[in-house]
Each structure stands twice: as C-alpha cells, then as structure tokens.
C-alpha cells in the first residue's frame, strides 16, 4: 500500500497524463472527422497544413486563441461565461474512472492504469453525464436569444430523455458482472469460449443492449442522427449561437471529449476492454493492452464519424418518440430477459 | 474521527437554512428549492445515524426519501406552471385571491 504522499503524487502524474492524452485525442478526433467525412463526400478534407493535414488541429487551436472573444451586451454574464467551463469540466471528469490497462509496476510503485478505482465507477460516469446537461441548458438560457433558448431546451430535453435508456442498457452488463467497478466488469469478460471466441459481453447476449447503448450515446452527445439542437440549417447554431472564439471552442472540445468517453465506455463494457493477444518482451507486454484498448476506441470513433457522414437527421418529435416509445421499453425488456437468464442459471 | 454530532449539526444547519428560506422568500420556485434543501439536511442525518449504528436500513430510507422528493418536485413544478398560466406571477404574496 502506498503512503498518502506517494499516492497523491502518482495520482497527479496520472491526471496530467490523462488530460494531456484526452485533449490531444480530442484535437485529432476533429481532424479524423474532417478527413473521413471529406472522403465520404468525395473530397479531400484538410491537406495543406502539414502532411495529410495533420497539423490542422494546431492551426485551429491558434485560430481560436487569437479570434476576438465577443461578449454580446444582452447576455446574463456570470452564467454565460460559466456554462462552457461547466460543459468542458464535466466532459473531462469522467476520464477519472476509466481504466486502460492492468496494474503496472513503474519505478517500484504498483499502480493501476486508472486514476482511481472506485467500486461505483459506472455510477460516477452516469452521474457526470447527468450533470453535463447543465452546461447546455445554462448556455441556451443565459444567451438571451430565442434561437439559443430553443436550442438549449431541446438539447437538454433530449439529453435527459436518452440518459434513461443509456442507464438501463448498462444494467444488463452490471447483472452479468455483479459489480459497478469498471475494472471488475472488464475482468468478468476475460477468457474465451471454445478457445477462440473471446468472452466479451457482446457475445454473451448483450448485443441488444450494445445497440441501445450506441443509439442512446449518439443522442447524449448530440451527434447525427440526433443533432437537431445544433444543426446549422435548423436553429442557426442552437445553444452556442451567441458564443465565439475560446468559449465556442470549449463547447466543441466538450462534445468530442464526451464522444471519446462514450467510446471508451463501450469498449470497456461490451468489447472486453483491453484484452487481446500478448506477446514479446515484458515491456511490450505492458504496452500492448493500451494498444488493444486504443484500437477499440478508434473503431468506435470511426463508427461515430461514419454514421455522421451517412445518415440524415431526425426531426425533434421523431427523436423524442424514438427515445421514449422505442428505446426505453426495449431497454427494460433487455433488462428483464437478462435478469431472468442470470437468475435461472444460478 | 469526526464526532457524530458534527454531522448532525451540519444537517441541522441545512434544515434551518431551508426553513428560513421557506419563510422569507417570495418566489414560489425558490420556496420549493428550500423544501428540497430541508429534505437534503434530513438525508444527511439519516445516513449519519446509519453509519453510527451500522444499520443499512438508514440508507434504504434515504433512497425512499429521494424518490418521494423527486415525485413531489415533479408534481409541484407542474402546479407552479399551471398557476403561472392563470395568474401571470410567481410571487406568493400576489396569489391571494381564490377567484381572479
């Protein structure tokens, strides 16, 4: 067991690394999206800044920093300034309980590859997702403009509605793993069936829950096909109409950070986390789980972007009735069936 | 090693703030929020006693208090919306006639 000071120091180092990796991942997810959507639409995407446009996020970041930060006079200033910060804070907080690998021994200190392993990890992520609604609602209201208010109300109503389906779809996974801790859930998926099919939750009957989770997560992060609240052709720009420069960039980053959190969670809960063939010298064996985890997260982000380039968007009433009248009963049915099967097996 | 009375005093202070707000505020929604504050103070007291006597039933009761508070908030806010539609005001002192 580590002493208090060592534990604090190690945690601070892990937090710094996690935030750095997350922010870089956010920047390059934007690059990936522009490239992939461009290719889907038969054009190149960013190609000029650096090879393959790889320095484009850097140029975008510089642009946001130097852009004029306009604060319209009619806004409610305290909440106007606080809302993007709230959105970004809550988007970055859920990375604290996401494990990316097994325990490692660095310089004689045994530590898990996770900032903290609480035994209610999944509930914390759901809680932070619930709190993320505030950033959107307050941004829409404090901007004191009709487009922003409507966009903010619609976006927050959508997020609150799909949170329920999101939570219920995860209960099936919880029943099978028996614990809220994310590390325990991943470890319950270790091993294989018949020697080669991995014992992932998606193969253990949670395929319906997987698709419910995917759809609810697309709606939670306000992405196509559920991105009506921020579609340019519908409501100017929804709740971030009145925002410019750095504050707009914070909303942008919050959205992509939420996407990455959702992708990480899906790979942990349904696709077995960081399991994969391990080979080579011990140093490679310590790094390989990170690689397998990163591969799954990348696959999810690619799926997100692919769906964005392909599907049209839902109308708002279609969106709400889909969430309440289809996803919620389906999630409850999935929960009941899973519970029955687990109870009958035991 | 925090004495139990500290937790009870904190719960008591929250409850007292809730009662004060209930009495001095004039906006219906703020009065409702003071009710929620009172319920939160009571929840803290429940959990503190559950920790002292190692009785998990305290936590279960907090769960029920939260559910009832959520149901009450939903219905109460619906009533507030209905009152606002007819009286056009959220000030309790101005909602003082049985018939408009």
């Amino acid at each position, binding site marked *: 067991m580590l002493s208090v000071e060592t534990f604090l120091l190690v945690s601070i180092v892990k937090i710094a690394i996690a935030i750095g990796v997350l922010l870089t991942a956010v920047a390059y997810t934007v690059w990936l999206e522009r490239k992939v959507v461009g290719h889907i639409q038969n054009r190149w995407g960013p190609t000029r800044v650096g090879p393959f446009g790889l320095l484009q996020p850097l140029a975008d970041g510089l642009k946001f920093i130097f852009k004029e930060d306009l604060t319209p006079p009619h806004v409610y200033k305290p909440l106007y300034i606080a809302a993007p910060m709230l959105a970004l804070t809550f988007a970055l907080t859920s990375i604290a309980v996401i494990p990316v690998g097994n325990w490692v021994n660095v310089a004689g200190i045994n530590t898990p590859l996770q900032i903290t392993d609480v035994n209610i990890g999944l509930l914390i992520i759901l809680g932070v997702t619930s709190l993320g609604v*505030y950033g959107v609602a307050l941004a829409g209201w404090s901007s004191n403009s009709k487009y922003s208010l409507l966009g903010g109300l619609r976006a927050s109503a959508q997020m609150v509605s799909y949170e329920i389906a999101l939570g219920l779809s995860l209960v099936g996974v919880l029943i099978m793993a028996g614990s809220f801790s994310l590390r325990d859930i991943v470890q319950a998926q270790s091993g294989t069936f018949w020697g080669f099919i991995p014992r992932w939750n998606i193969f253990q009957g949670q395929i319906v829950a997987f698709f419910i989770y995917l759809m609810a997560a697309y709606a939670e992060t306000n992405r196509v096909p559920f991105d009506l609240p921020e579609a340019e052709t519908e409501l100017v720009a929804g709740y971030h109409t009145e925002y410019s420069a750095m504050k707009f960039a914070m909303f942008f980053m919050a959205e992509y950070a939420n996407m990455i959190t959702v992708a990480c969670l899906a790979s942990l809960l349904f696709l077995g986390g960081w399991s994969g063939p391990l080979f080579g010298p011990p140093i490679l064996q310590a790094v390989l789980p990170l690689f397998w985890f990163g591969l799954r997260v990348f696959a999810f982000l690619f799926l997100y972007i692919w769906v964005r380039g392909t599907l049209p968007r839902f109308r708002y009433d279609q969106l709400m009735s889909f969430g309440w009248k289809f996803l919620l009963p389906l999630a409850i049915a999935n929960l009941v069936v899973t519970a029955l099967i687990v109870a009958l097996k035991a | 090693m925090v004495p139990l009375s500290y937790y009870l005093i904190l719960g008591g202070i929250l409850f007292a703030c809730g009662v004060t707000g209930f009495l001095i505020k004039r906006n219906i929604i703020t009065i409702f929020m003071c009710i929620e504050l009172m319920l939160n103070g009571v929840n803290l007291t429940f959990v503190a006693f559950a920790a002292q006597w190692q009785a998990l039933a305290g936590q*279960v009761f907090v769960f029920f208090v939260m559910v009832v508070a959520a149901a009450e908030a939903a219905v109460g806010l*619906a009533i507030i919306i209905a009152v606002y539609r007819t009286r056009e005001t959220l000030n309790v002192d101005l909602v003082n006639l049985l018939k408009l």
Partner: protein
Amino acid sequence: MLHLILFSLFGVVCVAGAINLLVQTHPINSALSLVVVMGALAVEFLLLGAEFVAAIQVIVYAGAVMVLFVFVIMLLNAGIEERTNGSRVALRLGIPGLLIGSVLIAWVLTHANTHSVNVGALPGPPKTIGWLLFHDYLLPFEITSVLVLIAIMGAVVLAARPESPRKES
C-alpha cells in the same frame, strides 16, 4: 485528521451554498447554489461510506430534479423577486428566531453523549442495499414505483396546455 479536514471543507461548501441560496434574488442563482449544496452533500455521504447513496444523490437529485427546476425557471422566465410587506416582516422575525433555534439545537447535540464516526463506516458494497430493497423492503419499493407513476401522470395532466377548440370543417 484528513477526515476532519475533508468533512470541514465540504461542510463549509454546503453551508455557503445554503446561505447563498437565501441571499440571491434571482431564482437561477439559487438553483445553482442548491446544486452545489447537493454535490458537497454527496461527498459527505462518501465520507460516511454510503457510496450508493452518494451516487444516486448526484444522478437523481443534482442531475434530474434540479435540472427540472432549472427548466421551469427558464421556461417561466422567472425574474428577480420583489420585496413586499410580508417578506420584510418575515425577515425581521424569521432570521433571529432561526439563529436562536439553531444555536439551541447545536448546544444540545454537542453535549449529548455520542461516539465518533469513522471514515467509510458503513459496510458493504451497493449489493447489500439491493438485497435489502428487494427482500426486506420490497413492499415500500413497489409502492414508491406506483407513486412515481402517479406523479408522472399528475404532472403531465397539470402542465398540459389547455386544448384549443377544434374547428369542425
């Protein structure tokens, strides 16, 4: 020692949030300070070892009930509240009365014979609460689910827009 520091820190945040709720004139500021109070209370629950209760405090109370409050404040465009005669009387009488009451209660509590509570004193993972809910307290659980259903129906009926008379063509 660390327990006392953490308890005091989040206790101060709770009380500051509660007093801010009383002092602010605009309801949206009061709502946000109540969210802060609920978050700090969730940490206090964690210090007592009630992790499940802390998590549902954040998910249900701060993340759903308070969002509902914020929605209603936004929809009804509640403004800064005015001072009327009744509120002045209540201020002059209420605040001293409550201060006296709280001092009395605090005095009684600190002189009572109570033990100290350890950090994380409550035993068990959330599994044990689930067991209790579905075995010993099954009837209240089912009744609260019916209560929530009634509340949903009531809220929908009360807040529904009055139907406009349809034109017969």
